[in-house]
């Protein structure tokens, strides 16, 4: 008996070694796992970096039927502060500037006051209207009824990069799980390697176990580069506990690894499994809040989006990284991930074609 236990341990070790060697001897896999998330976080972090408060840009029209002085006066009022950049323009130029987004609002002097031309669906236009109106009303003699006390804050964790990094971690866990497991299993089946191994005394459970162990090990090596990079380049901090973060990543990573196992359970060649992985991952890539919040989708879609494993994983990662949440408080999200993992595993065991 002990002989057979030693054999099994050494078999698991050898299968795991095979997986590791095949992984680190494949330069492409190394790049997509380690390099790509860094490049993506760097590019997106630069593109969406936080800037200081920006002034709104408005045009002041000088219509023919109103004295030019009225337009000059409005321009002077608006240009007095730093909140607004005002530009004098002829009506046709102002029209084009508004349409192309160069200005957010057009101020049109009238015989009795001012008209505002703007697009109320544009957030910058609504902001410009409020700011411009305020300045013009005050200059015309309106008095404020009280002086508000201003308490400004800069919340760490509110920047786009703070939102992005947990999303990239979740996305990375999904991609490496699905591709790393699914693609390599399909390749082993195509090349008859799976069949050849089934002609040895190898146990199926040992084989799958070795695959999942390697996935877990690789996943632990994938996290530090992105976290350290985000920390040193963009000052992204982890508000919650690192241990919680790692445990969530392990659960999520294994969930997607098992999903990869399911997707590869029948596929006779890597092309089929690529298609399946794309079909499975694309909705999550779009809806699960990798690059922007999943709450932007309509309410009717929310129950479905909430039920996706990547949404749950991203929400849990963000809660821990940004809000410092505990494992217990993201229990619902973890349960969703675990349910997907167990469901896929049960199904994969039934469907998996070994020979």
């Amino acid at each position, binding site marked *: 008996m002990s002989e057979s236990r030693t054999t099994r341990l050494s078999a698991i070790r050898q299968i795991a070694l*095979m997986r590791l060697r095949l992984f680190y001897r494949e330069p492409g896999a190394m790049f997509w796992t380690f390099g790509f998330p860094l490049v993506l976080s760097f590019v997106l972090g630069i593109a969406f970096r936080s800037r200081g408060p920006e002034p709104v840009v408005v045009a002041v029209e000088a219509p023919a039927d109103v004295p030019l002085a009225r337009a000059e006066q409005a321009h002077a009022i608006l240009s007095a502060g730093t909140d607004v950049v005002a530009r004098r323009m002829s009506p046709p130029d102002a029209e084009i500037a508004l349409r192309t987004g160069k200005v957010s609002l057009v101020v049109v002097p009238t015989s009795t006051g001012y008209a505002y031309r703007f697009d109320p669906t544009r957030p910058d236009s609504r902001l410009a209207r409020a700011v411009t109106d305020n300045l013009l009303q005050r200059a015309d003699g309106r008095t404020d009824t009280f002086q508000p006390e201003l308490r400004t804050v800069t919340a760490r964790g509110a920047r786009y990069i703070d939102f992005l990094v947990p999303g990239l971690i979740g996305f990375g866990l999904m991609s490496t799980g699905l591709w790393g497991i699914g693609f390599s299993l399909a390749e082993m089946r195509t090349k*008859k390697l799976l069949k*050849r191994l089934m*002609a*040895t*005394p190898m146990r199926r459970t040992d084989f799958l176990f070795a695959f999942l162990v390697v996935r877990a090990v690789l996943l632990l090596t994938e996290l530090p580069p992105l976290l350290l990079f985000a920390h040193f380049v963009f000052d992204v901090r982890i508000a919650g506990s690192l241990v919680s973060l790692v445990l969530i990543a392990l659960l999520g990573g294994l969930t997607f690894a098992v999903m990869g196992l399911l997707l590869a359970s029948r596929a006779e060649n890597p092309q089929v499994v690529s298609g399946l992985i794309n079909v499975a991952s694309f909705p999550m890539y779009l809806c699960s809040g990798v690059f922007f919040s999943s709450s932007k989708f309509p309410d009717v879609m929310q129950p479905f989006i909430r039920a996706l494993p990547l949404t749950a994983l991203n929400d849990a990662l963000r809660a821990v990284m940004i809000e410092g949440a505990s494992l217990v408080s993201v229990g619902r999200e973890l349960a969703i991930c675990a349910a997907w993992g167990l469901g896929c595993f049960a199904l994969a065991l039934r469907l998996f074609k070994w020979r």
Partner: protein
Amino acid sequence: MHEPELAVRCRGLVKRYADVTAVDGLDLDVRRGECFGLLGPNGAGKTTTVEILEGLLEPTSGEVEILGRRWKTDEAWLRQQLGVSLQETFLPERLTVREILALFRSLFERGRDVDSAIDLVALREKEHARYAALSGGQRQRLAVACALVGEPKLLFLDEPTTGLDPQSRRMLWEVVLAFKKQGGSVVLTTHYMDEAERLCDRVGVVDHGKMIALGTPKELIDSLGGSQIVEITLATDAEETLAAVAAALRSAPGVQHARAQVGRVVLTVTELHVALPAVLAELRTRGQDLTNLSTHHATLEDVFVTLTGRALRE
């Protein structure tokens, strides 16, 4: 424990797929310590048969006993006793010879160590080379080493030398003969007659999923009733003429069989010195011009052609 006499025993083996019957009621006994060859053209059902014996395919019906045990009840035990080389396996390209053998060795409870397996197939120089860098012959030697690393009692080799250079083939033959010498049993498939004649104690000829002949290579050749084959090419290759000539030559002295094939007439003869003058005389009286005549000792290839009317490698 009592050791059963047969390494392989199968009865009434049938494997049907939706549109084709690959194996059609095949019986097979392989004795312990014997090398048994399954011969047949591509698509004859050799590989399907072997994969059923290896426990990789379920037969539609029929009984299979390997080393006296059945796959359903003793799979774990059987896997430890069997060495298998599939017709086509691509081992992981980015692993080295040594790493691949270590992997296969780890899957068996007992076996030879990796170094002795490397020496067994003379891959010492390539020990640290990746699979991707090996030649066809080296890959096949590695595949056989993987099959032998668990020190099996029974070895299955599915077309072990197809497409290999003569040197690699001879090298693999030596490995198989050495395995047999140590008491191992072998089942191999091939469509090379010289391979079967060199390695196999007995051969079975398979066609359309059925065993159409069984015996030692010598028995099968002798069953032709003659030990020489004469091939005649005439100036004409008109089918009717060739058929008429073949029919006439059938009664010539010393001729056992005569068949018209595409472009030629093939005779099986017992005594060449008696048959040849008679054959030439018959051709002369029929006014047929001989363009080519060749003779050779009968081989398993001729047995197969006689049995099926087709060449083995069609």
